[in-house]
């Protein structure tokens, strides 16, 4: 019955004695680029969190909001950030940690240089603190019909047989969690242009390669053969290096490039 009081100052995941031993006094320093609302100017604020092994950036933020006081002792607002799964499958906690765009939940403090700097992904409109507006990605998914189109919820019978090797390839592409990191690191993607980026192009390849999805492949290709489409890619391949799901985005981009070539030729000769 007294567990609750004992564990009051420790994070709920570390109720073993190992966490409090041997780390007396050590602090983790965090600098956060904050912004109070979409139209406000950003400002930096610095914090300190008592060291515990196993912390990731999000658990640091959770600690901070239990006692939101900055390094000078001034009362602060808890830092606003998006998160979901805490295991790098939802894509919500994308942020720039020590200059690198990544998921916050996998950014282990023991592997980061201090002070740890946290910034929002500035190629998306900042809403508040580390939370940004990524609706542009979802609008692009709609634009390319990133789904398998079926004409109703009536019984369509069993689906077509699928080659297991192709299914394995598609599975990798399908792990995209729309986190936006590939767009943040892309030299061709900017807040004020309309490049769709690796995220969207990968979805075009995914659904074009699905036996039922491919019925809409022409529409998908047309959507990325215009302004801001696949042609804007400069092949820097930062997206591949940054993708937290290790999706071979450069292969998707080349594949869609090929599909676009064929489609353009067919349209030109009237096929």
């Amino acid at each position, binding site marked *: *019955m007294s*567990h*609750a009081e004992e*564990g*009051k100052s420790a*994070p*709920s*995941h570390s*109720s073993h004695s190992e966490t409090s031993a041997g780390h007396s006094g050590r602090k983790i320093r965090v600098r956060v680029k904050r912004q*109070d*609302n*979409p139209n406000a100017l950003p400002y930096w604020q610095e914090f300190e969190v008592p060291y515990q092994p196993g912390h990731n950036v999000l658990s640091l933020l*959770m600690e901070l*909001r*239990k*006692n*939101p006081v900055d390094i000078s002792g001034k*009362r*602060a*607002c*808890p830092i*606003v950030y998006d998160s979901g799964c805490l295991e790098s499958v939802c894509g919500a906690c994308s942020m720039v940690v020590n200059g690198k765009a990544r998921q916050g939940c996998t950014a282990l403090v023991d592997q980061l240089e201090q002070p740890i700097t946290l910034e929002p992904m500035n190629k998306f409109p900042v*809403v*508040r603190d580390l*939370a940004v507006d990524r609706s542009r990605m979802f609008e692009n998914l709609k634009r390319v019909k990133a789904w398998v189109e079926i004409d109703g*919820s009536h019984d369509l019978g069993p689906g077509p047989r699928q080659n297991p090797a192709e299914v394995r390839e598609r599975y990798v592409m399908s792990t995209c969690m729309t986190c936006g990191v590939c767009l943040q690191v892309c030299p061709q993607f900017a807040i004020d242009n309309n490049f769709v980026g690796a995220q969207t192009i990968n979805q075009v390849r995914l659904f074009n390669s699905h036996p039922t999805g491919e019925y809409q492949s022409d529409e998908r290709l047309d959507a990325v053969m215009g302004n801001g489409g696949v042609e804007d890619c400069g092949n820097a391949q930062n997206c591949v290096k940054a993708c937290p799901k290790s999706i071979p985005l450069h292969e998707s981009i080349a594949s869609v490039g090929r599909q676009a070539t064929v489609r353009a030729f067919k349209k030109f000769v009237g096929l």
Partner: protein
Amino acid sequence: MKIFPGMHYTMGGLWVDYNLMTNIPGLFAGGECNFEYHGANRLGANALLSCTFDGLKGGPKIVQYCKGLKQRSCDSDSSLFDAEERRMTARLDEIANMRGSENAYVIHQELGQMMTNNVTVVRRNDELKGGIEKIHELKERVGRVGIGSSTAVYNQELLFVNQLTNGLELAHAIVEGALQRDESRGAHYKPEFPERDDENWLKTTKAAYSPAGPQLSYEEVDIRFIPPRKRVYNVDKTASA
């Protein structure tokens, strides 16, 4: 790779009838948030089942219900909606202006630790009673929470406090229901009552909100088509109980 048990699904939920309508006419609940399918324990992949089947079954029912209505919401007097909007806005404003000394995230952590320590699979009545006392303490403390800022833009603290107050009610219902159930069944194991007691407890606990705490009542389980038997994993499936 280190592993540890964690909360990942809720077996109980909102009460709904067979058409997925709650006890509020016109309010439907589908998916994980309702109490269907799981009983005392939850089979693997039942989450997928409940999400897909609820949509498949509930969707047409909602359409049917709407078509049977004599009056549509847009024909209703707007004062109904204005009053509710005012009530909700007042509640949110009330939270936004809280300047107490308690921290909502600390209260949330204490609640979570109490529930994890006392209300997972193994439950003891003295610990459950202590849990209810803790909930009373937290309910009182949550009224003295301080919000960092009342700004309207993406105020996560505001939403968190709103949900925390509701979460405390839910926790209270869970602990109270567990305390009353003196038997073991599925994921509810009481060492003091290690056996199933079908005679007294083959029924679903229902909890209704009241300011004084959850008001419990019970609903019989429909066993017309499948007679209950002891659920063990170390015997041949075809063997009788």
